[in-house]
């Protein structure tokens, strides 16, 4: 099984997200994460979908997406040559006053930001790779993780090396 990042440029029109997600459902593929936003050209949106499957399945889903009339470009990004990040928010329990300090330290080690520091909880915002997010999540669990929200991955491929 491989993990793939698909970057899909679509027309910025209503109903397209529905068609794309419906394709995954009807072809029996899984969406691991999805993020959508407008591109530099307001006529288009970019969907970044991560999915897990065997190589044959990934090739097939790329072809099926490509075949869709609403998709302008479909790229499977080279995971080793792309910048991919996800934004996540953790609401972490503060059990005793020292926790606050600890969470602050931890957050700064991960270049995360602190929001809404209350006596009972702290909201931490971080932008990181899924791997880093999992690592932080494990650490946060020690205090007690009240809630977590993730945006799904967004990604861009690095430019080719110039020869």
């Amino acid at each position, binding site marked *: 099984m491989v993990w793939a990042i698909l970057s899909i440029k679509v027309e910025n029109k209503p109903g397209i997200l529905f068609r794309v997600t419906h394709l995954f459902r*009807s072809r029996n593929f899984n969406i691991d994460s999805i993020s959508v936003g407008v591109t530099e050209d307001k006529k288009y949106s970019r969907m970044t979908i991560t999915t897990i499957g065997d190589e044959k399945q990934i*090739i097939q889903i790329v072809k099926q997406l490509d075949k869709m009339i609403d998709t302008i470009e479909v790229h499977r990004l080279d995971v080793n040559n792309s910048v991919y990040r996800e934004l996540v928010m953790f609401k972490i329990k503060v059990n005793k006053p020292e926790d606050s300090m600890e969470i602050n330290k931890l957050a700064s080690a991960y270049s995360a930001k602190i929001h809404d520091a209350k006596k009972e909880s702290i909201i931490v915002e971080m932008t990181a790779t899924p791997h880093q997010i999992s690592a932080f999540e494990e650490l946060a669990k020690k205090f007690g993780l009240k809630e977590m929200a993730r945006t799904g991955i967004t990604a861009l491929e690095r430019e080719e090396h110039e020869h």
Partner: protein
Amino acid sequence: MSDNNKMETMIGATALMKALEKEGVKEVFGLPGGANLPMYDELGKSNIRHILVRHEQSAAHMADGFGRVSRKPGVCFATSGPGATNLLTGIATAQADSAPMVAVTGQVPVSMIGKDAFQESDIIGMANPALKYSYQPRTPEEIPTMVKQGFYIAETGRPGPVLLDIPKDVQQNEGKFTFPDEVRVPGYHPWTDPDIPNTARAVELLLSAQKPIILAGGGVIISSAFAELQSIAELLMIPVVTTFKGKGAFPENHPLSLGPIGMHGHAEANKLMTEADCVLAIGTRFSDRSVGTFAEFEKNLKIIHMDVDPAEIGKNQTTSVAVVGDVRASLRIFGKMLMDKAVRTSDDNPWLKHVKEVKQYWRENLKIHPGEMGAAKILRKLRELLPHESIVTTEVGQHQMWASLFFDAIHPGTFFSSTGLGTMGWGFPAAIGAKTARPDVPVVDIAGDGSFNMTENSLATAVLEDLPVIVFLINNSSLGMVAQWQRTFYDRRMVGVELNKCPDYVKLAESYGAQGLRAQSMDELDKAIKTALKSDVATVIDIPIDPEEDVLPFVAPGTGLKDMILPS
């Protein structure tokens, strides 16, 4: 885009009719209702013929049959809500068999969408996975471009159904219109340049094979690649099998023809398919019904796959060489490369000798039902009396598979069936649609009683619209294919398959003003077919047969073609 710059003022429904006329639409199949009244009002004023159905599912099947025969999208109309949902089975059938269709539904007014209005259904949401594309205009001005794009999408590349869902106020409101002569659809690229390098590789691979075979699919029929296919087969002396959907891609009376492979393929076709070492597969999606199990099929077989749809390459089978593009264009290049190489195969090679022996053996030794009115005999009688250019449709079930086995499609592109979705009730309305497209040739629906029940009220359409098709009703008074599976796999525990000789099909036909004939002997059948062919009214020929007759050979689901069950 070279638009006519003159803006014309009219309501959306008028613009719809004008846009349809501009696409060359001469007839639509449909049924009116509350939400499509404005379009019907304008349809009445237009030059387009309306063919009234008694159930919207039949309208979709008629449009489908029309589309497959004429290779131009058939058009069906239905109102919102249940009218639209009744089209769904027909839309899904067209999608499964890549048939061009444009379905136009009425929708509740824009301001009512999402309010659970009377006869509101989210038909775009419901039909999405069964559609090639869909549109819902929110202003009348969008209609002409959507119609133009819709037809373009429906008929190009791998054809399919397109839905236009038009809210009632969008039909009624006035707008200022231009009608585009050309459209661009940014994310749609149905044409690819001919793939020269891979075609060259395909030629090399096929020429290096010891036991080559050609597998022709429905794509050959869709792209009219008959002549190209035949010339390559004859040049290389390679035997041709087809998928069931590809039946009619290659003349079945040709010495190189082995007939369809698959679950109920010809014994010789299945046998030789499993012996081949290289297949040139053209316009096929390797359905499980054709190939049995995927892994078993590709064992010891090199696959050259030509298809217009890149997503079909590698979906079900591993290919050695893939040639993406219109199969007719690809075959032309393939043929030209063979000509340039001055390749010619003599017919005394050991493979071809073996092929001939196997074919002859099965043509002589396949056991058929001993009764006078056995399926093979009645279908061979139909073939004997029916002119070769006649169009044949089928329903779904035993009769369909008997037609595959015992009715040879000789003239190219004259045999049509619901092969992908397997929709009972498809054949009769599809035959009516086919007759609309080709009034000059006889059109016969080879039917079973169970399937005919599903859309038999289309008799009204056939009679009143003067579309005299023939229903060749192979009547075993049961849901025969299910009965066969219950006999074979469920120890003869027969559940829900007995139809108890109800209704009387002669009386049923007559009650609609059609001709009803019953044939209980070969003599009666001979007369009935001749009478029907001369008749200017739709005819149902009721042919009672032995309800215990099975379809054989049979490749059981989940097994390979080599495990074919033969008649004992």
